[in-house]
């Protein structure tokens, strides 16, 4: 729903003037950012039908205009499967990116939906923790590039994605179209268990593969994604939501006031890749 205001902003831009300006901005003291994901991605070529992966990125916040990330390279990172009592150890690879050490890689053969996973990051004597369970997704039935039914011009096109809704109470899904184009969707108003089609406008860049990810989510993760989408797309404009700090699910248990940004997530992921064409076939029809 929040995306609606996009369209109104388009209207305003007909009259208005948008300009990048110089602005002296205050910078908050650096805060730790933990971007941690334990993923079970659908891959029919593997024995289990899924491929598991784990990735953790650590950095500090920087000033708004700075383009230089501030990686954190000296943290101690683990993920513990609590019931199975398995500890996965991470080692720093490069530029704040942490990967499983060789021994741990062999340990994550299956991610059990009933298992609880605890992330632990120790940095500068402070411990950051979060515990999550696997969030299941649903298959993408079809993704295709189509002419924009509401296009401004002939060559405007969009992506139409159809997926199978899961029956049961409200389910949440997150879509990731890459390049920060993320949003959540819930099936509250969707006919129970039906195939659901929706359209995503996207930044037009052709002749490339577009990977679309459908990520399982709970309400909490869906809200987090919405919050990210809100403050990276439509905050502060004439009808913009008052911007705010987006807080994730990781707690600094040593010093709660020094909370981290970022999220620890354990998701099932379905992917679909399509080739974006400059003049898609449908224009010839």
């Amino acid at each position, binding site marked *: 729903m929040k995306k609606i205001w996009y369209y109104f902003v388009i209207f305003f831009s007909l009259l208005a003037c948008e300009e990048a300006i110089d602005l002296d901005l205050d910078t908050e003291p650096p805060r730790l950012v933990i971007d941690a994901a334990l993923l079970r991605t659908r891959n029919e070529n593997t024995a289990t039908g899924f491929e598991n992966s784990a990735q953790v990125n650590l*950095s500090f916040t920087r000033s708004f205009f700075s383009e230089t990330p501030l990686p954190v390279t000296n943290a101690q990172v683990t993920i513990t499967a609590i019931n199975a009592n398995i500890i996965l150890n991470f080692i720093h690879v490069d530029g704040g990116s942490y990967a499983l050490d060789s021994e741990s890689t062999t340990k994550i053969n299956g991610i059990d939906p009933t298992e609880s996973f605890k992330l632990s990051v120790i940095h500068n004597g402070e411990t950051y923790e979060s515990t999550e369970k696997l969030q299941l997704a649903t298959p993408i039935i079809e993704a295709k590039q189509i002419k924009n*039914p509401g296009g401004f011009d002939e060559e405007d096109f969009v992506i139409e994605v159809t997926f199978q809704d899961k029956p049961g109470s409200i389910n949440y899904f997150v879509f990731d179209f890459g390049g920060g184009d993320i949003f959540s969707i819930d099936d509250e108003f969707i006919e129970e268990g039906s195939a659901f089609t929706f359209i995503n406008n996207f930044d037009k860049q052709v002749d490339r593969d577009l990977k679309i990810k459908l990520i399982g989510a709970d309400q909490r993760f869906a*809200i987090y994604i919405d919050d990210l989408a809100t403050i990276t797309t439509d905050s502060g404009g004439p009808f913009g939501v008052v911007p705010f700090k987006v807080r994730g699910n990781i707690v600094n248990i040593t010093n709660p006031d020094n909370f981290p940004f970022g999220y620890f997530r354990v998701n099932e992921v379905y992917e679909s890749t399509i080739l974006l064409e400059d003049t898609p076939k449908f224009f010839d029809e």
Partner: protein
Amino acid sequence: MKKQLYFLNLLFSLSFVSIWAQKYTISGSVENANSQEKLIGVNIFIKDLNIGATTNSYGYYTFNVPEGTYDISYSFIGYETATKTIQVNSNLSWVTELSPALETLDEVVIAKTKQQVSLKGTEMSTNTLQGTTIKNIPAVLGEADVIKAITLLPGVSTANETASGFNVRGGSSDQNLILMDEATLFSSSHLFGFFSIFNPDIVKDLKLYKGGIPARYGGRLSSVLDIRQREGNKKEFHGEGGIGTITSRLLLEGPIQKNKTSFLVAGRTSYVHLFLPLFDISNSASYYDFNLKVNHTINEKNNFYLSSYSGVDNFELEGVLSNQYGNRFTNFRWNHVFSSNLFSNTSLIYADYFYKLDLNVVGFSWKSDITYLNFKYDFEHYLKDEFKLKYGLNLINYSFNPGSIKSLSDSNQFISERFTEKKGLEGALYVEADIDISDKLKISPGLRLSNFLRFGEPNISIYENNQPVFYEQNTNIYKEADPIGETSISRNKIWKDFYNLEPRIGLAYEINDANAIKASYQRTVQYVHLISNTSTPTPLDIWTPSGGFIEPEKSNQWAAGYFRDIADGAFTLSTEMYYKEIENKINFFDGADIIGNRNIERTLLFGKGRAYGLEFLLQKNIGKFQGWLAYTFSRSEELIAGRTPNEIGINNSEWFPSNFDKTHDISIIGNYSFNKKWKLNASFNFQTGVPATFASGAYNLASFDIKVPVFGERNANRLPNFHRFDIAVNYTPKPKNKKWQGEWVFSIYNLYNRKNANSITFERNFETNRNEAIRLSIFGIIPAVSYNFKF
């Protein structure tokens, strides 16, 4: 409570004080001689007795005078002053006609014409404007606008140039009671706030109460904007209109039955959308509005009025979405004069406000609306010249439909659904008195007893500890609570009821003929609320009534002022100070998803508000050069503390500036008449930039390939200062024939092309992938020509 009851007793006991001296009642109404429309606010003055009065909202007045012969003068801005000599030896009643002054178009007036009256009354913190004044202020694209005009008064502002609504003394825009011919409006803007819905041609009189709100008004915290539409000419057929850059308008009026029944119809429509297809633009934004008024005089004692308004906005992005919203109301009114000192008005109003959005992209249609039926019965009772009473009752039956969804396509992938309708009944009884304690000291006490009944509805969520908002202690995040159950209450039963006493009082002390001091106190209560988490409200925002989860918002305001008449009325000066506090102010937690939320209570936090300020208004009322200088110094702050000491609240439970806190606000309006043909209007406005929330850092989330800005505390920063200079030249050619009078208005808005920031956003440039601060400025320099006519 005891004190308030005592006060009520006092009021009623005073009303039975008998009248000793042998006095006669003289009364009547005042009309426009050309059209027989009743005139509001005419100053009537009896010099020999040094007493004065003004005609009420329906054009009536009353005096009690001893036997004798008196000169009674009637003066009203834009009209020739009339004097009548009357010999009083019995009760008398007559109709006085005033002829419009020839120079009507040239008058610029605001409030108080004859200071004898305004210095004496207890009324303060109010401003009146007339249609002609509004039309004279240079406006964006040459479109005269009521709301834009009142924001040039002290104590009134808007969050930005395109904000819908206006803010009075630091209050939010839903705290204004906007009345058009007594009907409450829920939205006052066209095109999301670019223009307001009031056609300047039909505005007869406009009065804005920023404080000292009389007890007869209620239901909103901060202000009352009372707009009266013209009634229509009872004598002859006339028309007027204008052709502008954005809209054209036409008004027709005339008698249906001469001297008895008149009609007035007026319409406006924007037509830019008609030309857009020429430029191959298939998107459009348009609006229209339509006013109708019928006035029927049965006899001197009975008048019937029918007024109706309908306005719709249309907004279309071809194939993507289409959006309509609008207001409608019909008011049927009966003015009845029981006797020369008892006057009544009965109103029955039906109104609705709707909002409709078809999202073709997603394939669903969304509709929400508010309808209400309002019954009002008001009395004005002139017991003595020193003691006048007003009392009455007001009942509003609301029905809020927060939204229904249905699928646009055949695929039916959306479930059609209607959110639970919310119903409530708002009632009020009031009494107010105008008491002259002495020649110099006047007091106007008032009391309003208001209540709100929220009726039952199905599927009301039950929350743990009755808290619809859940606080996650370890991450300090507020989020929507999961209900622990559900209950249903019959539609006929009351779910929650509220009763409130709202005392109001005004005091005035006249130091001498030219100086007066005044003070006022008001308590106001608001039972319906606009829930918005955007910097300025949008039409998508939902009005929600008080009920099981939302307490009424309450406010106290104290004001004091000094008023001065300089050089025998050539200049007037008013200085006021106020302090206002608000309880249960509705707010929301960070990232609350309000749009389309069926359980809006799960997003709300309640806080406090406080505002204080100093207002200064100097007016020049006569001469070739007229105008005003307004200066406001003010603060408006909010506090959203945690519900328990363990909660963080918003901004660490500390006071922070509200969205429309402006430290300094200066307006200078002037017009100079060179001769009968040429006139120059100019206005300058300076305002401290409004609070905003700026980025104070950034980080990358590699797993989503996204750059995330870090925002600081809510409203911790400010947009750059706002200033703008506008001019307009009016050219009135000598009429070729008596029937047609035309006027050209050449205007330039934002003469020095200041790029005022409407907002500053913080985003990533998709091409360079660098973070940028983007300033959005809406109106640059805009020249416009419009043509107005009368026949």
